[in-house]
């Protein structure tokens, strides 16, 4: 094996100097490798840490905020949800199937490591233009990878989002979220263990796969990354399933003092993290690590990112029982080291000491860079845009085009490949509402889950766009009748060394933080993925929000489908006309510009509270938030889902129709209700200060739009359903 | 020590959707002369001890019982002596 230099490992000159100072000598190859992975952005957050401090992380519902394997929120009855979202962008760009599959595997391990039974997966995906052959391959590989892994585990994939935009052409985003359910008293923390406790390694044998994965994730994608192919790990979902069952049994019987999954940076990271908690040290003997390949050197063993492995620190005297449980599941556990008191991470090969570094230097000692952001020139250029210079498209044609856009069209081609019903809790399945809803067996309550981020909006205005992502997540939950509790986020950006990108990060995080504060949805976990760029430039800044919420009474859940002939259709929120950043401008005019619609956080909060009151009082029969494609697309989707038409009469106040129909201005919802409930709905809306307008009625088999009584769109529901339902499938044939 | 190469293929007449898909792709890539594609499994097994005949017999039994499903699959065993 050719030895890499510290620069090839991703370390800077000054970082190398710092390591020499810490050790008081030159680091050897193993030590250098350990520092380089622990000091990568992926493990050490060295560029993002100062910005992440801005997130609100506390609240009465928060049991565990950032800093553990995943965040935890209280859902009453002694139960809690454990959840986190994580990126696997770079591995998926190189090998979409395995990259995506192991992304799911990694996030699932984070959840059961906390003692929680994983109950749902979601994913947030971004690809380039779907007409491109390579993009089709990536898309289909990623979806198959997520499906095959999650399906095999028996964890339903219940929601998520997929967007296509040239900004992601060479650098797709694959963010996987997992949610687990745990009894509060069974939450397992990665607390350090008693001196002398053994370290047990269990699961798959160790190979050379994935060495320097964490470093790889912290670099830009280039031709050279193609050559780093061996970095990609192969997933074994069957092994993971056995690990889930065995580890949850260990926790039920209270047999472990600490548990860590082996993710990025493999043994180095998991051992350092379990030992760093109370200033403990650790010794590990690499010769005891079961291998899949011969001739591996300590450096390779310590840095391998072979999947499906767990590190376990048993409670005193429980090793025997732990061995029995692993044996039942056909797993091998091996003691590879023990906890010490000297704060040193010592690596042995047999009796020979091959590396020794202070644990804290690897974790707390990771350098932190506070950079300076600089507003990029495009920011002002994009805002300098006047809609009046664009001709208005025929509204009917525009609506058909939008329904056929892969960003708006039905995602059934995707979710039909995911088992979204296993565990028999899915009370709202993908595609039926703005969020997934799961029952909690034995209780009347339910939980709702959604992921959101409109990368184009964040690009045009990171501050507003960041707020929008949080607001949309919360609004989606409120639309199904769930109170938003907390969020996790996956911050996908380009290189932080570019001041323009750093500015995007600063602004987006500022916007997200403000929205999260006002809406009372703290950030409890997350992941940062930087250097998402290719030679053609950086991706749209894409800070994906994964939000969880609680329904007190699951029987009051609300879907997006129109229900009964004659029901009134209403708009909750203001009639707005801002077209900036809309899918309409992109699809019909090829333009990605404009000012992002302003968002008023208080208004959003009031709307969410109104939605919760409406669903609680059973006053609305359908609810769908206005996002991509605007009001027109929202109406069409509720109609298609309900297999029923509608007739609406809109007031354009003399301005052009496209502005009102296709504006993606936030804080608005299309709902339907029984006419008898109108007064009650009006009263509640007034109470929360939210505007309400009556648009028309449900019924017939056509989507009919009128302008003061004059019909201007007349679309058969069946035809629209075909366009919307088959668009992605047509691309993938 | 013996090393066996076992080829498990779908029986004639059993539809092979994977093979069909690959055939279609090859046609798209302009390999017009492609007539048929069938996809199977290739399994390597190492055996210690015994003679060649008993090893072969053992391998055929393994194939009948587990490695291939006689309802849909055929198999062929090759065996070579290795160090």
């Amino acid at each position, binding site marked *: 094996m050719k030895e890499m230099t510290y620069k090839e490992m991703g370390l800077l000159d000054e970082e190398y100097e710092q390591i020499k100072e810490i050790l008081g000598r030159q680091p050897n190859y193993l030590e250098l490798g350990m520092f380089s992975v622990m000091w990568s952005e992926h493990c050490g957050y060295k560029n993002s840490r100062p910005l992440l401090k801005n997130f609100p992380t506390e609240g009465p519902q928060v049991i565990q905020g950032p800093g553990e394997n995943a965040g935890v929120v209280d859902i009453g009855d002694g139960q809690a949800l454990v959840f986190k979202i994580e990126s696997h962008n770079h591995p998926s760009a190189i090998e979409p199937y395995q990259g995506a599959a192991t992304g799911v595997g990694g996030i699932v391990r984070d959840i059961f490591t906390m003692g929680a039974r994983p109950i749902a997966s979601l994913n947030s995906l971004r690809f380039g233009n779907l007409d491109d052959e390579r993009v089709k391959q990536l898309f289909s590989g990623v979806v198959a990878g997520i499906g095959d892994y999650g399906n095999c585990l028996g964890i339903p994939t219940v929601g998520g989002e997929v967007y296509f935009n040239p900004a992601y052409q060479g650098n797709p985003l694959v963010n996987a979220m997992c949610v687990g359910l745990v009894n509060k008293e069974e939450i397992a923390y990665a607390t350090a263990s008693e001196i002398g406790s053994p370290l047990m390694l269990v699961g798959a044998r160790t190979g050379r796969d994935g060495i320097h994965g964490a470093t790889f994730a912290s670099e830009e994608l280039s031709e050279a990354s193609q050559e780093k192919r061996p970095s990609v790990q192969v997933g074994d979902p069957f092994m993971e399933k056995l690990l889930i069952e065995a580890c949850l049994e260990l926790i039920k019987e209270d047999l472990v003092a600490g548990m860590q999954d082996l993710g990025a940076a493999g043994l180095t990271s998991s051992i350092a993290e379990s030992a760093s908690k109370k200033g403990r040290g650790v010794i590990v003997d690499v010769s005891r690590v079961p291998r899949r390949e011969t001739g591996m050197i300590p450096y390779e063993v310590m840095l391998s990112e072979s999947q499906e492995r767990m590190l376990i620190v048993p409670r005193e005297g429980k090793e025997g029982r732990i061995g029995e449980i692993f044996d039942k599941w056909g797993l091998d556990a091996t003691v590879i080291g023990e906890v010490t008191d000297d704060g040193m991470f010592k690596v042995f090969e047999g009796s020979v000491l091959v590396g020794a570094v202070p644990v804290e230097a690897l974790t707390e000692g990771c350098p932190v860079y506070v950079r300076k952001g600089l507003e990029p020139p495009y920011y002002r250029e994009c805002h300098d845009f006047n809609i009046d210079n664009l001709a208005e498209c025929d509204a009917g044609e525009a609506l058909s085009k939008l329904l056929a856009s892969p960003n708006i069209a039905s995602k059934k081609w995707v979710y039909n490949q995911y088992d979204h019903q296993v565990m028999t809790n899915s009370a709202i399945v993908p595609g039926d509402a703005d969020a997934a809803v799961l029952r909690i067996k034995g209780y009347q309550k339910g939980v709702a889950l959604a992921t959101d981020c409109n990368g184009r909006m964040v690009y045009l205005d990171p501050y507003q766009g960041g707020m929008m992502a949080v607001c949309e997540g919360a609004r989606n939950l409120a639309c199904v009748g769930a109170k938003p509790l907390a969020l996790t986020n996956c911050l996908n950006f380009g290189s932080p060394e570019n001041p323009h990108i750093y500015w995007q990060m600063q602004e987006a995080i500022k916007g997200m933080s403000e929205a999260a504060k006002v809406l009372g949805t703290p950030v409890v976990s997350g992941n940062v993925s930087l250097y998402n760029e290719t030679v053609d430039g950086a991706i749209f800044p894409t800070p994906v929000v994964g939000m969880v919420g609680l329904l007190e009474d699951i029987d009051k859940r609300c879907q997006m489908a129109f229900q009964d002939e004659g029901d009134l259709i209403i708009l909750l929120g203001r009639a707005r006309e801002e077209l900036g950043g809309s899918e309409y401008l992109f699809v019909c005019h090829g333009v990605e510009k404009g000012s992002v619609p302003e968002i008023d956080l208080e208004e959003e909060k009031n709307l969410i509270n109104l939605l919760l009151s409406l669903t609680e009082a059973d006053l609305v029969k359908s609810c769908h938030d206005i996002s991509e494609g605007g009001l027109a697309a929202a109406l069409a989707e509720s109609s298609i889902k309900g297999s029923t038409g509608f007739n609406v009469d809109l007031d354009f106040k003399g301005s052009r129709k496209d502005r009102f129909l296709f504006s993606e201005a936030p804080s608005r919802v299309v709902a339907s209700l029984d006419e008898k409930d109108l007064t009650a709905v009006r009263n509640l809306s007034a109470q929360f200060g939210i505007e309400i307008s009556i648009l028309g009625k449900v019924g017939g088999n056509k989507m009919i739009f009128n302008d003061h009584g004059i019909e201007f769109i007349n679309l058969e529901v069946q035809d629209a359903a075909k366009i919307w339902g088959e668009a992605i499938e047509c691309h993938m044939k | 020590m013996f090393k066996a190469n076992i080829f498990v293929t779908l029986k004639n007449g059993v*539809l092979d959707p994977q093979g069909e898909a690959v055939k279609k792709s090859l046609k798209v890539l302009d390999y017009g002369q492609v007539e048929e594609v069938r996809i199977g499994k290739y399994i390597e097994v190492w055996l210690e001890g015994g003679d060649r005949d008993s090893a072969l017999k053992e391998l055929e039994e393994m194939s009948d019982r587990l490695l291939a499903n006689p309802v849909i699959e055929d198999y062929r065993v090759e065996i070579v002596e290795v160090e």
Partner: protein
Amino acid sequence: MKFGIIVFPGSNCDADCYHVIKEVMNQPVEYIWHKENTVAGFDALILPGGFSYGDYLRTGAIARFSPIMPAVIDFAEQGGLVIGICNGFQILLEAGLLPGAMLRNRSLKFICKPVFLKVNRADTPFTNHMKVDQVVRIPVAHGEGNYFCDQNTLQSLKDNGQIIFTYCSEDGQELPEFNPNGSLANIAGICNIKGNVLGMMPHPERCSEEILGGRDGFYIFDSMINWLEEVGK
């Protein structure tokens, strides 16, 4: 009356079946670990869905050699009720309790969606609370549900009335376009000649409660309970 649910490593619908039998059907039920070697004391066995042994090699191929399987085969031969759902069906095929084999879905993709099934017989232990030609809506979730057998076997399945469920349209037409996976003769579920062993790809346990969007699956478990009660008399 006691139901047993066989748990193989990699089974993942075991808990779903357990929930339905215990909480929805209100019947006693226990898990049976695959390393056991007896099913004494059970009146009906469920082989649940999932990916036993990761479905490596072939679906169901490795599970079929689990220590519990001789007892399952024995139980079936003595007329005990055995239902194999999805992966359970695949295991029954590999074990030879039902004829035929599974191929990959025609689309080569995993498919999870509700499908319509036609009930071809209402006199079996599994369908006696359903009607002949009734159309039920039950979800499928599999990558290999493309049922295959040779022509002679197909003929004997037909002659013996062993094809219990076929994929169809909402109004009961058994046309190829309503077949989600390419299975022979739109087969979704078959039984053995005696009628006490059923294998089906769709998941009745996923639609036995209204909150999950329908309860057509309920009637399969209900039929089994009814049959056991009748026989018990």
